[in-house]
Every structure is written in structure tokens, then in C-alpha cells.
């Protein structure tokens, strides 16, 4: 036993030494060329990732600004901070900006762009110029939306339900729709690029089941991007045609069906939830494996769970329509299928938890975000079961319960994953370390602020407070004040990393090639990496997260795990 342990320690030391030996080159992707042009015309996936980072950060704070307005208005039951019309535009723009311009691109376009080629040992993505094009398309779409905001915004809710959006709203529906329509193409191009890259550009020896789980989840996400996004494009086009030339596809007065819009809209927008959360799951798998220095428990199950979520995700859109007058039997089918998609999500949580067993668990900031993600995802996921239960959904549909649920998934899930990933790969991206103490403090502030903001909204929802209400009955005030108080804490929590990240770019200590003692190809090149990523193409002879050689692998039995959990042996008895 003792012998094996020391062997393991030895092999790890050798591994760490190899990592240390990779001397940072004098030139890397950040200082290879200078000037605005070298950034705006770059085809380097890492620089494009940083262009996206700047864009999505801008939109995150813009969307956050609208959230500040919403929470200020909801401090009091009466509508007194802004006009009703202004409030309606604020929550709409909050949704549009956060979903289309932050949550959907955040992880794939920033971390995915940066890491997919590095993790598979490639020099770049398969189509570097298309990659740059996707950023320009995103920027063009964003420009349309920003113009729409400056011209007064839109008041339909981010869901653009007809016939309100097609006939009655006097906001800039078409302009905003065009913005989202254009941005969709950047998403399609990114997805296409990832799929081709993952299929064709893996390093020698890097077989499918040796891929990091981050890659699996991005592969699944890319499938949704290229199969789902065209549907929202068509839907927004139909909406624009309906509004401009009254083609009569959604307007009942012209023989159309307004509920058809909801079907088309959610056919994309429900899978879009998985575009937002699957990449975050990929990040969490990386964090859990590398911060416990251990292979992921049930690797193949986690990998296939991503694909299962992507496929089943296309079959559950009708659970947004349980009270829309769709057929009762259709409702039942969509309810069953929604429970089917819950299973692979649960499988992931169980596997992450089991991975901790006999790991070497670090409490670094990235791991704190991973713990936070798992906690929020349990609450977000379990409340999804409430919403899929037909009889309960009828009551909580379109109330704050739904608002709380999807914020737990998107803010508690996606943003926790995004921030965890940003901290974990920050040394790789910038070559600098962030201040660990501040980062842990910020993670704690975010955890507290988030729960205080969104947990009361579950209660508000069950009590019956409808969403998108500008003024509300007095009995809902206490919980709304709690939520607004939490939001201000959450806002501060988001500002702290913003400040120390910028600080660390100049003043942070230099990072080694592998400051975490992590596994994965991205840690086997210098920080920051050279423009072509690796000095020479790596040849992979190891499994995913193989911190110790394969022959030391044990297959755990159920009995082992239960014994260990129920009857902890005294430390040192091994």
C-alpha cells in the first residue's frame, strides 16, 4: 500500500516537472503582433475569444443595468420609479441582451473559442476566417439591437409573443428581431466550426473517449446551435413579415394562429437553454476533475448525458405551453419527455459528486464556483420537476416561480460555470494569476447575493405574483424587498472580479504553464500559449484526466462506496 502511494506521488512529481519545464516563449499570442488592426483582423482563435470576451462583458453589464432598474421599481408595490411603459421595455431589454448577447455566446464563444483547439492539440479552429466572421456578425447583430435600445427599445418581453408583438406593440420589434436574427448566424458558424474541428483536428492518439468532457459538451452544444438556430431565424422572419406586410400566419383576424408562434419560438428557445447550460456543465466537469486531480466518475455516462440532453432538448418545447390551450394530450406527452431530459441532468450531478470520493480536493476559487454550480443546479433542476408536473405548472406558470427557476439555471448555472472557468483558465489566457483571497471572497458574495435575490422569488411565485408586473399587491412587498437587497449584493459580487481581473492583467504574478497541477493539453503549453498553441503537435498516449497511470485504476463497487460513506475509517489507517 505504502509503496503504491509513494509511486503515485512520484509519477505526479515527474508530471509536474514536465509541466514546469515548458519555458514561456519570448513571444506568445498576446505580444506576437501589435496594433488595433492586428486584433480586428486576427484569425487566431485565442484573440477572437478575447474579442468576444470584451463584447459579452459589455452586454453583461448593459443587461445588468436593466436589472438594476427592474429591482428598483419592484422595491415598492406601486409603480413609482419609472413609467409602466419604461418598466416593460427594461425587462424586455434585460432578457434580450442577457440571452442573445451574453448567455448564449458567453461560454462557447469565449472559453470554447479559446480552449477547443488547445484541448485537442490543434493549431486553430478548422475555419479561422469564419471564426472571425462570426464575431463580426455578432457585432452587427448587436449594433442593430443597441440602435433599437437607443431608439427606445421594445416592450414585448424577450419572448415576442404574437399577436402583441405583430400587431399591438409600438416598440422597435422589427429592429430588435433583426438584431437577434443576425446574431443567430454567428452562433451557427461557431457551432459549425467546433463540430468540424472536433471531428478532424484532434491530435494523434486523442480518440473520442480521451477527449476532455468540456469538448463533449461543446460538441453537443454545437449540434443544438446548428440545428436549432435556423428555426428562430425563420420565426423572427415570419414575425417581421407579419408585422410589416400582414401575411396572416399568426394573426387570427387573417386566419392565422397566434399559438403557432409559441411553438416555433420555443422549438428553438428551449434547446437554447441547453446552449446556455451545457457548456457550463463542460466547465464544471473540467473543474471537478482537475481540482480533485482525479478522472471523472463514469466518464462515458457524463459524455453521453450531454448528447442525450441535446437530443431530448428538442422534444420538450411544449412544456412552455401547458396553459396556452394546446391539447391536453400534447401537454401530457411534453410533460413525460421533460422528465426524460431530467434524468441525464441528474446523472451528471451524481457523477460529479461521486468524483469527489477519494479525490484530492482543492478549495481554490474555481472549485468554489463548481460547488456553487452544483448547489444551484440541484435547486434549479428540482424546481424544473415542479414545472414539468402539469397540475402544478398551471398554478405557477408565468409567475415569479418560473423567473426564479430559470435564473437558478441560467445565472446560478451558466454564470457560475462561466466565472469558475474564467478563474481556472485566466492564468492560461493572460499568463497572470488573479488574487486568490479576493476571488474567494467574491465567490462567497455572489453565492449569498444570488440566493437572497432569487430564492424569495420561488415563494412569491407560489403565492401568485405574476411575472412582468410593474405594480403588485402589497402582500408581496417583503419578499420583493429581500430580492432587491440580494440583487445589490449580487451586483457587487460581479463587480469585484471585474476589478481584480483587470488589475491582474498588469500586476498579477506570472503564471506557470500549469499553475493548478491540472491535466489536459492546454496545460502542456506555455501561459499564455504561442500563436500556434504548441511548439510541436502533441501525441496523446494517455486517457482523459489520467492523473495516475491506468493500471492503478480501481473499479469501485457499490458496497465500497457505501462502506466508506457510512463507516468512515480513521485517517491514516490506509
Amino acid at each position, binding site marked *: 500500500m505504502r509503496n503504491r502511494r509513494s509511486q503515485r506521488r512520484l509519477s505526479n512529481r515527474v508530471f509536474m516537472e514536465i509541466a514546469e519545464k515548458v519555458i514561456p516563449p519570448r513571444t506568445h499570442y498576446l505580444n506576437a503582433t501589435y496594433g488595433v488592426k492586428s486584433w480586428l483582423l486576427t484569425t487566431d482563435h485565442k484573440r477572437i475569444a478575447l474579442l468576444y470576451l470584451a463584447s459579452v462583458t459589455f452586454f453583461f453589464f448593459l443587461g445588468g443595468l436593466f436589472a438594476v432598474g427592474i429591482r428598483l421599481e419592484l422595491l415598492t408595490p406601486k409603480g413609482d420609479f419609472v413609467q409602466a411603459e419604461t418598466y416593460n421595455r427594461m425587462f424586455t431589454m434585460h432578457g434580450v441582451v442577457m440571452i442573445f448577447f451574453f448567455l448564449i455566446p458567453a461560454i462557447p464563444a469565449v472559453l470554447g473559442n479559446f480552449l477547443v483547439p488547445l484541448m485537442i492539440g490543434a493549431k486553430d479552429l478548422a475555419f479561422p476566417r469564419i471564426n472571425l466572421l462570426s464575431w463580426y456578425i455578432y457585432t452587427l447583430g448587436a449594433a442593430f439591437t443597441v440602435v433599437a435600445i437607443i431608439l427606445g427599445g421594445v416592450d414585448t418581453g424577450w419572448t415576442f409573443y404574437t399577436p402583441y408583438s405583430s400587431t399591438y406593440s409600438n416598440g422597435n420589434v422589427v429592429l430588435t428581431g433583426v438584431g437577434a436574427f443576425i446574431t443567430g448566424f454567428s452562433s451557427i458558424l461557431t457551432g459549425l466550426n467546433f463540430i468540424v474541428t472536433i471531428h478532424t483536428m484532434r491530435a494523434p492518439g486523442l480518440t473520442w473517449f480521451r477527449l476532455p468532457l468540456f469538448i463533449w459538451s461543446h460538441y453537443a452544444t454545437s449540434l443544438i446551435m446548428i440545428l436549432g438556430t435556423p428555426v428562430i431565424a425563420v420565426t423572427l422572419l415570419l414575425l417581421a413579415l407579419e408585422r410589416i406586410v400582414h401575411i396572416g400566419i399568426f394573426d387570427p383576424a387573417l386566419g392565422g394562429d397566434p399559438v403557432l408562434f409559441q411553438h416555433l419560438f420555443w422549438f428553438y428557445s428551449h434547446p437554447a437553454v441547453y446552449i446556455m447550460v451545457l457548456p457550463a456543465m463542460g466547465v464544471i466537469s473540467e473543474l471537478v476533475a482537475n481540482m480533485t486531480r482525479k*478522472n471523472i466518475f*463514469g466518464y462515458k455516462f457524463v459524455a453521453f448525458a450531454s448528447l442525450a440532453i441535446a437530443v431530448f432538448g428538442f422534444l420538450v418545447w411544449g412544456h412552455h405551453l401547458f*396553459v396556452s*390551450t394546446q391539447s391536453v394530450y400534447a401537454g401530457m406527452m411534453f410533460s413525460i419527455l421533460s422528465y426524460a431530459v431530467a434524468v441525464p441532468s*441528474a446523472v451528471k450531478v451524481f457523477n460529479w459528486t461521486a468524483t469527489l470520493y477519494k479525490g484530492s480536493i482543492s478549495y481554490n476559487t474555481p472549485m468554489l464556483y463548481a460547488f456553487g454550480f452544483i448547489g444551484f443546479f440541484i435547486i434549479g433542476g428540482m424546481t424544473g420537476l*415542479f414545472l414539468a408536473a402539469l397540475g402544478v405548472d398551471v398554478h405557477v406558470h408565468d409567475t415569479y416561480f418560473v423567473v426564479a427557476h430559470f435564473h437558478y439555471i441560467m445565472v446560478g448555472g451558466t454564470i457560475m460555470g462561466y466565472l469558475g472557468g474564467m478563474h481556472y483558465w485566466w492564468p492560461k489566457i493572460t499568463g497572470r494569476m488573479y488574487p486568490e483571497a479576493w476571488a474567494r471572497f467574491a465567490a462567497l458574495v455572489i453565492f449569498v447575493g444570488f440566493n437572497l435575490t432569487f430564492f424569495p422569488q420561488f415563494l412569491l411565485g*407560489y403565492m401568485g405574483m405574476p411575472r*412582468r408586473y410593474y405594480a403588485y399587491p402589497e402582500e408581496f412587498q417583503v419578499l420583493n424587498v429581500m430580492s432587491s437587497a440580494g440583487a445589490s449584493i449580487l451586483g457587487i459580487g460581479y463587480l469585484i472580479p471585474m476589478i481584480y481581473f483587470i488589475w491582474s492583467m498588469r500586476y498579477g504574478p506570472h503564471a506557470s504553464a500549469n499553475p493548478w497541477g491540472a491535466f489536459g493539453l492546454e496545460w502542456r503549453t506555455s501561459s499564455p500559449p504561442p500563436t500556434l498553441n504548441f511548439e510541436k503537435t502533441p501525441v496523446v498516449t494517455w486517457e482523459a484526466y489520467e492523473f495516475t497511470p491506468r493500471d492503478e485504476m480501481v*473499479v*469501485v463497487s457499490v458496497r465500497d462506496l457505501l462502506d466508506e460513506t457510512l463507516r468512515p475509517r480513521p485517517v491514516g489507517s490506509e
Partner: protein
Amino acid sequence: MQVPIPFSPEQASSYSGQVDALYGFLCALTFLVGIVISLVIIYFAIKYRRRHDTEVGKPIEGSTKLELAWSIIPFCISMGIFVWGASLYYKMYHAPGEALEVYVVAKQWMWKFQHLDGQREINELHVPVGRKVKLMLTTEDVIHSFFVPAFRVKLDVVPGKYSTMWFEPTKAGRYHLFCAEYCGTSHSGMIGWIDVMEAAEYQSWLSGGAGEGSLASSGEKLFQQLACNTCHRSDAQGRGPVLEGVFGKEVQFQDGQRLIADESYIRESIITPRAKVVAGFQPIMPTFQGQVSEEQLLQLVAYIKSIGSKSPGAASTNAQPAKPAPPQQ
């Protein structure tokens, strides 16, 4: 059954206790799952914390048995929840035959109610306790949603069609009515009250208000004003089908399809008469779209419903034509 759940609205319908029971179960399940997983994570996180910098975890491949267990058990539990939730839903959407009917027209931003006896109300609905109430809802403009938290019911009101919902108030009181589907500037102002009254009180309220005669009689007046009766004659001599005895019966169309005549069919026949032409008749009826409001439509429907039980003069009950079928158009 009537377990009070903290942070929940009053239980004021036969349905609310049942929804709360499932909600309570789900809360308990969430709490249990959350606590168990959190405790396991905390235990592992402490027990297996990193003790020195170069330590690595013990490699463990995984376990198919465990994977199967934690896939199949959650699946079975979720199927149980599905059946529970679906049975509530099914009950909710199958309106009882015998019920007090109220017609509802939503518009930006108010709720208009018409009782069969002729009372009309805005943003306030009076109903008796202990009696099933069936609402037939439609809207003049955008989609709205009729939501009464105390009854745990909600249904979207979609333009161009009739939606039906029902509830049975079990407790007298005044309960919130909200519009739950975003409908424009004053969405949050589209609120009202449901007044549930004791039976006697309700009777005296009923006798207080009916000024304009019953809904069906208003419909009958309109039927004559719009000259519907020149074609739809009760003696089967008109150019249109006889309407007496049609409601609730099967109708056959030119294309051979059949349908039970319900409120939506009557509405469609007034708004887009050519969508379904009764077998044996020419598609000559003009559309009344834009000429009658949703409220007037409901009055016409109520009238045609009221003559649905009458025996139809000379025509047979399934509206077969008295004259030979003209050629298809």
C-alpha cells in the same frame, strides 16, 4: 388533504388542496435530495481535502451498477410525479356537464363578465360558493391569461377562439384575479377580484342587477337586427340551415367531415362562414368579422345555444337539407 403550506395563497377551491399536496410533496423531495447531496459533498470535501501540493486523487473508473441505479430510480420517481401531475391536469381541463356558466371577454386592460341571466361586470366576478363554475373566455385583442391563485387555476385567453375552464369555490371571500400573460403597457393593471358569496347572498346579488334581460334574449334581438333570421328560418324554407336544435348535435359538411356543433363552431361560422359549409347549402353567407364585437358574438352563441334544445320545425336534427343537395362549388 387540506395541508396548509407556508407562502401559499388561500385554498379556496376544490382543486387548491390537491395542487398544494403535490407541491408539498415536491418541496419535501427537493429538500431531501438537496440535503443528502449537499451532505455527501461536504463530507467528501472535508475528508478528501488536499493535504499537500503534489497529492493526486485515487483513480476510480466508475460503476455501471451505480450509474444504472441513479438513472432508473430518478426516472421512476419522475414518472410517479408525472402521473400525479397529469391526473390533476386532466381533471382540470374536463369541464363538468352541470355548471354555472359565465362568459368572459378580455381586452387591454380589463376583464368583462357576462352572466347568462344578463348581469354584466367589469374586473369583478360574483360566484356562489360550493357550485361548479364554468367560464368560456375569449379576447378582443392580444393573448391574456385568467389566473386566480386562490383557486390554483390559470388559462390563456387566445384571440380567435374560445377557451373553457372551470373551478368550484369552497370558501366565501374575495380573491385576486390576475392577468398572467404579458399584454402591454397596463398588464399589471389588468387585475380584479373574484367574489365568492354564500348561496343566499348570491341570489340577492343576482336579483339586484339584471337590467337588460338574459344573454340569450340579447342574442335573439341581435339575431334579428343583423337579419340572420331571413336565411336561418325556423321553418326550413330559408337559404341557410335551420339553427333550432343544432347546438350539441353532429353537423355534416360539404367535404364529408362531421363535427359536434359547439361554441367555437358557432363562432367560426359567424366570422368565417366559408370555413365549414353545411352539406346541402351554398357558401353564400357573408362574413360578420368586424361587424360584431366579441361580446355580441357571445350573445349570439348564447342564443343559438338556447334554441339548441328546441325541436327544429321541419328539418331533421342533423341539419339535413330539405331540398336536394346542389352541386359542389
